[in-house]
């Protein structure tokens, strides 16, 4: 059973103790934080706004300091396709699908253009 020490259980241990648990603790804690809040609570509007702003921030971060293949594109090559996607969204009956197709087409084109 020597391979247990080399490979077998070590990656699982690492994933659970340094990945899963540090992340999951927030979800579990939130279950208790959510206890006193019902659907009509005024707090809910604030919490929801914070969550929305946070998500928008995640997007901003992904585009401003990208990693991997996205980092090979200049800033205009990342922000431009987002704008094109959103123009398609509004032009085509508020369709998320249209936004994705147009944005993806734009960024792939930008990739070949810049590359």
């Amino acid at each position, binding site marked *: 059973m020597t391979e247990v020490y080399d490979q077998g259980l070590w990656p*699982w241990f*690492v*994933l*659970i103790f*340094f*990945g*899963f648990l*540090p*992340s*999951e*603790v*927030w*979800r*579990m804690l*939130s*279950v208790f*934080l*959510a206890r006193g*809040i*019902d659907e009509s*609570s005024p707090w809910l*509007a*604030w919490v*929801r*706004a*914070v*969550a*929305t*702003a*946070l*998500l*928008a*921030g*995640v*997007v*901003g*971060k*992904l585009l*401003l300091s990208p*990693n*991997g*293949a*996205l980092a*090979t594109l200049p800033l205009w090559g990342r922000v431009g*396709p987002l704008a094109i*996607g*959103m123009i398609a*969204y509004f032009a085509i009956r*508020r369709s*998320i699908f249209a*936004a*994705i197709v147009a*944005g*993806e087409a734009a*960024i*792939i*084109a930008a*990739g*070949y253009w810049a*590359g």
Partner: protein
Amino acid sequence: MQNAAIWRTVASMSGAAPLNDPPPSAEDAEDLGGRSRSSWFWDGARQALAGPMLVVSVSLLSVGGLARDAGFSVEIAVASTILLWAGPAQVLFFGAVAAKTSWPVIAFTISLSSVRFVPMVVSLLPIIRTKRTGLPTLLLAAHCIAVTVWAEGMRRIPLVPRDGRMAFFFGFSFVCFLGTSISTAIGFILIGELPRPLAAGLLFMTPIYFVAALTRNAKRPIDSWALVLGLAIAPLTEAFAPRGLDLLVLGVVGGTGAWLIQRALDERARS
């Protein structure tokens, strides 16, 4: 048992569930909109399959490749999707391992990045649960909440009758788990063989989808303002806020700003 609802949901997956809507009975005190729980479960599954599952699956393709680069097996890559259930945390995790970051620092960074689940869980859970929902069900539901499930759930779940919501939510989430598990494995096998512009396209899936979905979710000015402020503040917190805390600062500042704007608008409407 308080958590009977979840077992009923899981048990009904085994088949016998009627897909046709049964007639609503007068003595049925539960608010299921005249349908069975399993019917709502499959409705959630169907709605996920019709789009969100594909988007979230595509966005996790790259995680499989990162896991392989960091020297992990395909089982660990897929397990990270099911356990962490957070694309950015997985990217951080495998990226940090590949960069030989120390374990406590990795755990700390992951934990910081997952603070963003707090407002998501706290805002979505009160919409899904009923008074009878037991703790194990709530904990499992909280685990299922990630960005895609949250953004789609905030829009779709209020349309479902109260007692069908948990079933709908699990149907929706489980399909997302299934799709992303498969795509993580596919990404593990394929990545590195993709031309760079296509790889960039995969990574771009998350930003374009989030912005479009959040725009679609926006019903009141507060929602649009939260989105706009979040995007606008991002360059500032990126530059000035302490590393790791930048998103949290951004969320609280942007969210509070949007909330204040809505309050001012409400007051003006009242006077």
